[in-house]
Each structure stands twice: as structure tokens, then as C-alpha cells.
């Protein structure tokens, strides 16, 4: 168990998430890709804190903050998707194009 292993796992997670974010047409699947990417990021951040500066507590705080942000973001995202589905029977990004900023 060492840092490289964790970073490899984080990179794999991020890669799989990126692939999902880029390829999926379903909103739910796309958000799943985002979850995986963020998971990879959090894993890498935690591993870096643990192996490189375990004495500093700011790393822990940062990781906890990232997890919280991810949870909030996903909740909002799923709420939007649910509302969209209920309103328009839509679960694909292609039909929800009119929502773009």
C-alpha cells in the first residue's frame, strides 16, 4: 500500500468517469460519470494528504469539503433531472438542449 497505488486507482476512477461523461447520452449515466471523476479526485487528494503531509489538518478539511460539495451537487442535479422527467418525460441530454445557458 503506497501513494502510487492510490494515485493509480484515482486516475483509473477519473478516466472511467471522464469516459462516461463524454460518451453517455442519458442524464443519469452522465452524472454517474461525474460522480466517478469526483471520486477519483477525492481519492487522490486524500492519498496525497495521507502520504505527503499527514501532520497538516487542512488536507482533511479540504477532502471533507469536496465530499460535501459533491453530495450537494448531486442532490441538486438529480432533483433537476427528476423535475425534467416529470415535466417532459425526458431523460436524454439531447432533448434537454434548451436548458443550456
Amino acid at each position: 500500500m503506497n501513494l502510487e497505488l492510490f494515485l493509480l486507482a484515482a486516475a483509473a476512477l477519473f478516466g472511467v468517469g471522464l469516459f462516461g461523461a463524454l460518451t453517455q447520452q442519458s442524464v443519469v449515466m452522465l452524472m454517474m460519470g461525474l460522480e466517478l471523476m469526483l471520486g477519483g479526485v477525492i481519492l487522490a487528494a486524500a492519498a496525497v494528504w495521507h502520504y505527503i503531509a499527514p501532520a497538516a489538518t487542512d488536507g482533511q478539511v479540504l477532502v471533507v469539503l469536496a465530499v460535501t460539495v459533491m453530495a450537494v451537487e448531486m442532490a441538486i442535479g438529480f432533483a433537476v433531472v427528476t423535475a425534467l422527467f416529470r415535466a417532459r418525460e425526458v431523460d436524454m441530454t439531447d432533448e434537454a438542449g434548451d436548458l443550456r445557458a
Partner: protein
Amino acid sequence: MSWVLWALVGLPLVSGVLLCLGGRRADRVAPAAAVFVAAAGIVLAVTAAYAQPRAGAPLFQGAAFGLAVDGLSGLMVVTVTAVAALILLFSTADVGPDQARARFFGMMLLFVGAMLVTVTATTLPSLLMSWEVMGATSWALIGYWWHDPVRGRAAGVAFITTRTADLGLYLAAGASLAGGRSLALAGLDQVARPWLHLVAAGVIAAALGKSAQLPFSFWLSRAMQGPSPVSALLHSATMVVAGAYLLIRTGPLLSASGWGSDVTAWIGVTTAFALGLVAVAQTDLKQLLAASSCAQIGFMVLAAGTGSAVGGTLQLIAHAAAKSLAFLVTGFWLTRLGTKDLSKLRGAARAAPVAGVAFSVAALSLAGVPPLSLWAAKDVLLAGALAHSPALYAAGLAAAAVSAMYSVRALWYVWRPAPPPRPAPDGPAPRRVSAAEGVPFAVLSAAAVVLTVLVLPPVREAVARTLGVNGEAQPLPWEFAVSGLLALSVAAAVWAWGERPGRVARPAVRWAARWLGLEAASRFVLVRPVQRLAEELAGFDDRVLDRGVDGLARGTLRLADVVNRRVETAVDGLVEGTAAASLALGRLARRPQTGQLHQYLAQAVAAFTVLAVVLVLVR
């Protein structure tokens, strides 16, 4: 002493301008002021003639405004001022209070002032200025009664004619400059060769025009439309003799040119003869006197041409006295009797003996009857002609005989025993001669007699010394006798002949009465072609240039229209097309940008696939 000279020319000029500017408000003071100025002018002129001052003012580079009094100018300024003073004195009676007196006397003074500058000018610029002012004031004086269009037109004819000849003086000035001389009158005979002929031709033309010599004589006939005092002044001591004076003054130039002397002499003697005949044919006294002026001045021009300055000057002075007197008496009759027609003037001399005697003295003097002054003066200049060529002398004698004819013819009419002419209505009684009229009559009559003294040998030599000439031909006693006898016999013959119709063919008489048709001829030869040319040019201007400009404008408009419709739309279309194409391309470029990430991935995969295929195929 130059202040005398400035005062002499300045006084009449300034007071004349002031009177003219004063307008009708100055009418009351005008006669007195004018006579006073003229009297002062005599004093100044005599002073100047003795002191012989010079004056000058810088004007142009190498051509100052020069004035000087030498012997000839001294005689001239005294003559001019004396005659002008007497005529102005007469005018106070002749030009009544109901006329615009300020304008009349102001213009007369200006006229005299211009003549004074003319006879004292030493450089062409000052001569040209005064020459022009004289022409302009003569126009204003001849057209004094401008309400009458006939008189206005007559003034125009006189002015335009003299003005045309005046161009010669400008030509002379230009040629003199080109000949590399300053513009001094004294140096005109040393101008370089080819230019000298131009200078001589220009001076001769200008002098002939002002002096109403052939072929310019007709303007003097039209000038008779002015008031009588104007005619008296214009003919005796100012404008008309200015040309003769200029020719006498530039005598060296005429002889230097080689041909100028002969030309002037022959033109002078021809004028003296032909215009004498014209005078014989006139039925109007003023016209007769006008033609006589041309003829008498022809003698002066002859004198200038034959180089007898003394004779010419004596003739000029004597003629000034006689002719102004004749015109004054004519004016007197015109005012009193309301006519200047010879046949209606029968008995006029008997009605007012003072005027009658004065007129007789003037007419006999003009006729060249001894012992009056013109008889003697004419012989002095004819002696010069005889030395020059006998033919000239013979022609001069013939002209002298003609002068006796017309003078005695006029005399015969006014002395006819006839019921005295009825006075003009609302005029003064024809018998009464007021002091203002009588004094000039008396003085001028005396002058016509006394001036003969100038011809007697000791006095004549003094005159020659004054003029600075010597070695001129002297008349012999037999010449005096010949001309005197000729004048007397012709006078007697005419008196005896009386009114009986002559043997001359009617057309010839009519032709002479019409002043040889000179005016019609000049209209035909000069005025009509010029007007025709002007009309043609105006037509060319309208038809070609104007239309060309308009056409150019219209063509430009049409071209602009075509460009607007064809080229502009093409350019516009190109621009619009470019814009539309850009727009379309932009739309096309926006189509793959759906915002759908998975589609971008698909596009990238497709693009890379194509790239790979291309690479494989190209390699």
C-alpha cells in the same frame, strides 16, 4: 518753388472735386468759387511760367509722377488758365441758377486741372493720368444735361472715340518700357529702334484722337451737345489742343522715327482742308465752329509734323483766344435767341452790337484776315511747311483759303440786314450784355488783335528762346502778303456771293454736311464688326461652352446613374454576398456545436478516422 506748381494743378482739381461732392447744396457758392479759383490760377500760372519750377512724386520704379514747367508748358498754362477764367466768368451768366451749377463748375475746374497736369507732365504716368481724367470729365460735361438721351449718347460717342485713340498712349508707354528707357517724355526719342516706331505710332494715334483729327473728327460734332461754355473750353485751350500740344512736345520723337513727321504733317493738313470744307457745308453755327476747330488744329498738327514748334504754339494760343470767343458769342445767342441755326441767326449781330463785334473779330481772326493774330501765326507755321516741302505749303494755303470761306459765311449771315430775331421766350432781352458776358468778349477780342505782336521778329525770337528751339524756318514778308491777300480776296468773294447756291453737286454738299460720313463709316468699319464679333463670341459662349458645361454635368449625372445602377449593385451584391456567405458559413459552423458532449466525442472520432484514412492513403 515747386509749391507753385503743386498749387497750380492742385487748386482746380481739389476745388473741382469738392464742388462735385457738394452737389446741389454747393450750387450757390459754385460760380464765385470757380471764378476765384480760376483767377488765382492765372496768378499761379504766370508765377510758374517765370519761375519754371519742377515737382515730382515717386510713383513707380523708374517712372515718377513728374511735373515741370518749361517754356512751352509756361505758355500753355498761362493760355489755359486765362481762357478758362474768362469762360468760367461767362458761365456765371450763361449757366443759370436753375441748373446744377456745382456739378457744372466742379467738372469744368476738374477739366482745367487735368489739362494743366497734361501740359506740365514730364513723365508718361502723369500724362496718362491727366489724359484719362480729361477724357472722363469731357464725357461728364458733354452729357451735362443727362436727362436728354440724345446728349447722353453723344457724350458716349465722344468718350468712346477718344478713349479708343487713347489706347495708343498706353501702347507707347509699354513700348517705351520695352525699349529700355524710363518713362520720361523727354527721353522718348532715344528708345531702342524697333520699339521707337511703336512709341511714335501710339503717341500719334492718341494725339490725333484727342485733337479730333482725321479719321476721329466726328466725335467733335457730337460734343456740340454740351453747354456752350463747355464747347468753348473744350475747343480752345483744353482737350482738343491737348493732342496738338503733345505732338509739339514730342517733336524729337516724330523726327527720330523717320516717318512720323510726314505722317502727322499730311494728316494735319488734310484735316485742315477737309474739315474746313465740312465747316463750309454746315448750317448750324456750333457745328460750323466745331469743324473749324478740327481744321485749325490741323494746322497745329501740321506745324508739329514739320518741326516748327514756334508756329504751332503761336497758332495754338491765337486759336484759343479766337475760338473761345466765337463759342462764347454763339452761346450768348443760343441763350438769348434760342437758336443756333445760321439762317435763323440773320441780323443777330445787329441786335446786340457788342456781341456782334466780338463775333466778327473772332470770325475774321479764324479767317486769317490781317492784322489779326491767326493770320500771322499761320504764316509762321506755313514757313516751316514750305521748308519741308512745297506741296505741304500749297495744301496749307488751300486750307487757309477754306478757313476764310466758312468764317465769312457765318459772318455774312449774322450781319444780314433783317428784322432782329425774336428773343427766346422767358429769356433776357437780346440787347443787354451783362458784365459777366461783356468782360470775356472784350478781353478775348483784344487778345485776338494783340497776339499778333507775338509774330513780330523780336518777340518771335523771344518766343523761340522760351521754347528752347532755334534754326526754325522764318517766314518771309511775301508769305505774309500772299496769305493775307488770299484771305482777304476769298473773304470778299464769299461776302459777295452770299447765299446763292453754289455749283457744287448736291451729294457732295450733303456728304460734307454729314461730316464726311465719318461716324457712319466708323460704325460700319469698327463698331459693327466688334459688336458682331461680340455677339458671335457670346453665341459661342452660350452654344458651345455653356452647353458643353451643361452637357458635361448632364453626362456626369447620367454616368453616375449608370454606375449606381450597374457597378454599385455589383459591388453591393459582392459585399452583401460575402456577408451572406459568412453568415451561412457561420450557421454551418454552429451546427456541430450542439453543446452535447457526447456528440463532440463522436465528431472527434469521425475526424480522426478521416485523418487516419487520409494519412494512410497519402503515405
